[in-house]
Every structure is written in structure tokens, then in C-alpha cells.
């Protein structure tokens, strides 16, 4: 029983972070109908920024969060205007190759600037372990999980309750009709990239608290984030969080109860089943 509790709690908190990573991906996918394959590599960049702020300026990840998130927002807007805007009206293959190009670019830049060395933030403010029932967990992971829920709530509130959020939703529903009511579609797309990268930047900050950093670290999370978005529904923020948690729990439970080597088989099998049975995901709409 103690072991199952440990697996459940670890899976739950890992899932919350998967959820936060997925939110930005889901937002961009939902609004622009475009898959950003470089999403997790932007997270890698945020992890490096966090590490640099910690090692060079002594700024703990908890305090560097707003700085990194703001920086990533700007980077998102910049990426949209410099790169994405030029392929947005193009073929799917152009968009796909474009974001794959970003993957190569970001990983190469990181490798060039910071080498392939592994880095880790040693002894941040939030360090050590905490007991939750019979389970032991790093405090960094707990903070990351709880913060993921708060940030998801905040982004959901912006989307659902503010005029700018409504404009984003209107753009997602019909990008051709949106200008008729005065919405500047270009700006909305840039905003989606900004919010998307700011949220994955926040995930990177929290992850850097307890996870190692190296140029390919994003690849580890990219597939799981894609699965979470497809399960949760494109563009759905609650969907991304719930699906992220589901992925974390399924990964942990199947690894423990069935066989660790097959844990991703179970995750991806579930993904295929959901795509076949409910193509718009748990929380997505048919449109």
C-alpha cells in the first residue's frame, strides 16, 4: 500500500508539470491550428535562463520566475513575427518543417553556448524532501505541481474572463471572421505564442528546481506534452492539465503495476484509443 501511495503521489505531481508544459502547446495548437514541435525546446531554453540567473546572479528560481516568464513571452512574440508569421498561411508540411527547424536551431544554439554538459541547480531555496501520506517527494516537485495548477487557473481566467481572452477565442473559432469585429488576427497569434512560451517558460523554471538541464532535455517531455494536448483537447486549458495529470498517473502506475519498459506503450496506446474514439479529446469541441 505504501508503495502504491508513493507511485500515485509521484505520478500526480509529475502529471501536473506535464500539464503546465502542455498548456502553451495546446493554446497555440487550438488558436492557430499549428503544432509547435519546438515547444519543449523553448522550455529547455527557460531552464538554462533559470540556471544562469541562479549561477551568475544568485537569483533563486522562485524569484527568477517573473523574469524568465516575461523573457519567454517576448521570445514567443519575436518568434512569431520573425519566423512563424511567414508560414502561417502555408501548407501543413511547411509549418511542420519550420518548427522542426526551430528544434534543431534551439538545441544547436544551446549546445554551442552552454556545451553538452549537464547542469543542475544545487540547493535552491526549495530543496529537500517532504512527506505526503506515506510518500516521499522533493519539495521542488511539490511546488512545481501546485504552481502549475495556479498558473493554469490564471491563464484560463485570462482566456475566459477578459476581453483579450475573448478575442483569442474568437480568432480560434474563425480567423477570417475575427477581423470583421475589429480583432487584429496577427496580434492575437503573436499573443498566443507569447502566452504559450511564457507558460512553458514557467514550467521550465519549476522543473529546473529539481531536474537536470542539458540541450536535449526538452525532447524527453515533447511527446508526453503532445499526448496530453491530444487527450485534453486542442486549445483547452483545463483539458491540458487534466490530461497531463492522467498521463503522469498512467505512466507511473503502468510502470509499477505492469512493467517499466512498457509504461510509454500504455500511455501511447491510450492516446491512440482516444484519438480513434474521441478525436477532439476529453475537453475539446467538435469544431
Amino acid at each position, binding site marked *: 500500500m505504501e508503495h502504491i501511495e508513493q507511485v500515485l503521489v509521484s505520478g500526480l505531481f509529475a502529471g501536473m508539470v506535464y500539464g503546465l508544459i502542455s498548456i502553451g502547446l495546446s493554446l497555440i495548437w487550438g488558436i492557430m491550428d499549428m503544432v509547435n514541435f519546438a515547444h519543449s525546446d523553448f522550455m529547455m531554453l527557460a531552464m538554462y535562463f533559470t540556471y544562469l540567473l541562479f549561477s551568475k546572479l544568485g537569483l533563486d528560481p522562485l524569484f527568477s520566475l517573473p523574469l524568465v516568464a516575461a523573457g519567454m513571452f517576448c521570445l514567443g512574440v519575436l518568434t512569431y513575427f520573425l519566423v512563424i508569421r511567414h508560414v502561417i498561411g502555408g501548407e501543413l508540411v511547411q509549418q511542420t518543417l519550420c518548427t522542426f527547424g526551430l528544434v534543431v536551431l534551439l538545441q544547436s544554439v544551446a549546445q554551442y553556448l552552454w556545451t553538452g554538459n549537464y547542469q543542475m541547480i544545487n540547493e535552491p531555496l526549495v530543496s529537500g524532501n517532504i512527506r505526503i501520506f506515506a510518500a516521499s517527494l522533493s519539495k521542488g516537485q511539490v511546488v512545481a505541481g501546485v504552481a502549475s495548477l495556479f498558473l493554469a487557473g490564471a491563464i484560463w481566467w485570462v482566456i475566459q474572463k477578459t476581453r483579450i481572452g475573448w478575442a483569442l477565442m474568437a480568432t480560434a473559432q474563425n480567423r477570417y471572421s475575427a477581423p470583421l469585429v475589429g480583432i487584429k488576427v496577427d496580434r492575437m497569434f503573436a499573443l498566443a505564442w507569447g502566452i504559450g512560451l511564457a507558460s512553458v517558460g514557467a514550467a521550465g523554471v519549476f522543473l529546473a528546481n529539481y531536474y*537536470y538541464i542539458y540541450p*536535449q532535455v526538452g525532447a524527453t517531455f515533447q511527446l508526453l506534452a503532445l499526448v496530453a494536448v491530444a487527450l485534453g483537447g486542442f486549445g483547452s486549458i483545463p483539458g491540458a492539465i487534466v490530461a497531463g495529470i492522467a498521463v503522469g498517473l498512467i505512466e507511473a502506475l503502468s510502470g509499477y503495476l505492469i512493467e517499466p519498459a512498457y509504461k510509454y506503450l500504455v500511455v501511447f496506446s491510450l492516446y491512440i484509443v482516444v484519438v480513434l474514439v474521441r478525436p477532439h479529446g476529453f475537453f475539446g469541441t467538435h469544431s
Partner: protein
Amino acid sequence: MVKRLCGFFALGLALAVCTFFIYGVCGFAYAAEKTVKVGAIFPLSGGVAQTGVLCKAAMEIAQEIVNGKVDDILVPGATTEGFANLGAKLELVFMDSQNVPEKAMSAAEQLITQENVVALLGCYTSATTATASQAAERLGIPFLNESSTSPILTNRGFQWFFRCTPDDDFFTRNFFEFLRDEEAKGKNYGRSIAVLYENTLWGADVAKAVQKYAAEFDYKIIADVPYTARAASLTSEVQQIKSANADIVMLASYVSDAILLQTTFRDLDYSPSIILAHDAGFNDPNFLKTVGSAGNYVLSREVYASTLLNKPSVKKLNELMVAKTGYPLDGNSARALMGVLVLSDALLRTKSTEPDDLRQALLETDIPAEQVIFPWLGVKFDPETHQITTGRGIVVQIQDQNYIPVWPYEIAGADVLYPIPQWKDR
């Protein structure tokens, strides 16, 4: 006007003659600098890139030693400048495998067919060595592997494949001999084993060797847990090992997994009594640099240890490595360096660079122990399998963030610290 044109023409002609002359001299000088090209395939990008980059640096040091004249380092090829018998110097041509088996194979093909290399070195990970050596076998070019330890590599009946490192079978046997010797000294570590390993060729072969020798040495495997390499989380895997509650935990992981495993042990508050790790990620310089003191108490098998620095040649090589990279030699980079030297030894004795001659020279390799930077009995290859027959393993323990040899006892720097304390007591 005509005079002026003639002047320009004469100037142009003079420039052209000068250019041809300079090109000719340079071309001659270039031609005089004849080289023997040797291909080297390593992961220079991707998840294990840092190991590959350090191996490349170590091999470049070996290349400088072979091509220059060095009197204070006692290794093959140090006292001669290049290969006098071939009238050429050594030129290493590196290619990146990205640690992807298919890319390693195409790199091997490209090096052989386009770069005309006379031999290949590489590829660090067993999975990439397996495919790259297939290409060398097909195209009939000698392939000298320096540090891939999957036993299957030399059991394929290949004609052109040589390996100058002991394999996992040998190293795993070493672990059980170490446990037997410790027991003889009155230290009882228990007899149940949990083995956790990454599920590519190398990890799976380690697990097979553990099963084989556990039966031979009368140990019982109570948990056998393969995991997907480079997983985002290893919680369930560690939890399985934890619930098995084995006396001894054996691990086989590359560096990213090794870091994740050790931090997961800490997060789940799990301290097995003793951890025996199979080299690779646990001996990578990035491991300790990243996990810091959390890496203490792990025992690992090695081919190289800091106490070997008592040997002047090793000390000098280590200084060169530190000056070039900032990192000391480790088991992987030291073997990469030795690989170049072993191949150079064959190139110094070969009649020509024809593949058959070079293969014959490799088969006749007999490097004495004093010219080897490891505590081996020299370098000789088995005539059938081409596996080194003179290698020896070392067991090290991480104590105060240093790899201290604890076995064999004649080179041991300290006793084994046992049991591993609980995380709260560290």
C-alpha cells in the same frame, strides 16, 4: 598606349607565374605531409554528446603524441614521429553518430567510401558500435572499438572487428569476484540482488551477464527491471526496486538516466545498502558534477582510477587532458586515447595500409603492460573473437565526490564504506 598595355600584360603574366609557383610549392609541401586517415565515429551531439566530446579530445591528444616525438610518455608510438614505415602521419577524421545506430552506420560508410579511411575507431555506445562495425565488416575495413562493452559485439564472428576493452561479461564477473573477496574479508553484503538497467543492447547484455554470474556465485535475483532509456521520470522503476528490498542493487545506465536515478533515489528517500553501477553514466564527469554529494557511496566498475596517476605516463597524459578540456581523464576518455595508440601500434608494424595487412598487424598486437595506461597485463587480441585477452577491471567507490579504487586490493585507495547511510543522515 600599347606600351602601357604590354606593361599590364607583363605584370599579369608575372602574377600568374608567381601564383602557380606558390601553389606548386604549397602543393608539394602538402603532398609531402602524407597522412594515413583513420575514421572516428563518436556521439558529438545528442544525449551523450559530452562523453563523445571528451573522447574526441583525448583522441586528439593521442594523435599529437603519435605524430610528434615524446620521450616522457611511455606509450606505443610516442618515440617516433608518425609512421616511418608508411612515410605518413596520423590523421583522425571525426564524424558524429548522434548516438543513433543508423547514423553511425551511414557515418562508417561515408568514412570508408568517401574519406578513404584505412580503419575505423568508435563508437562509445554498444548500439552504435554494432551498426557501424557492420558497415566496416561489409566493406572489409578494420574496426577497432575502444569502450563498447556489450559481449555480443565480439561474438558475431566478424573478421574485421577488434575490441580493446574488457566486456560486460568480464566486468560483471569482476563484481562477483569483488563480492566474494569482500566476504572472505568478513564483510557480508547479503545475497539478494535487484538489477535495474536501460533497455538498449548494452543494458540488456549487462542484465544477462548479471543473471549468469549470480547463478554461478550463488546469488539470487529478486527484481529484474529494464527501463526505457531517457525516460522523463523513473519513479515507478525505483519504486519497484524499493519494494523488492534487495540487499544489493545493480544499475546499468547512461549519464542522463544515471543522474535521474540518483536524484529519484533521493526524492523517494531510498538508500539501498549497496549500489553496484556498471560504469558508463556513473563514471561520466557530468554525473558527479550534476548530482554532487548525492552521488557518494555508489560503487562502480572502472578501467581507470585516480591512483593510476602514480604512473608518470598517466600523470602526464592526465595533465594534457586537463589543459585541453578542463576535465581529467576518465574511463571513457582514457580508453578512447588508448584505442588510438593501439591502432597506431598496428600501423607502425603493418607492411602497408591495405586492409589485410593492417588486420594482420592488429592480430599480432602484443603491447607490454608498461606501455598501457590501465592496470592491464598488456594488449593482445584473441585470434578468433578479436577480444582483448589481457584486460582487468577495477571497482571504485565514490567517496567525498572522488572515485576511489577499492578493488583489486593491490591498487585500492580505501576500504568500502558500507552500508550506504540513509539520506537524512548524510
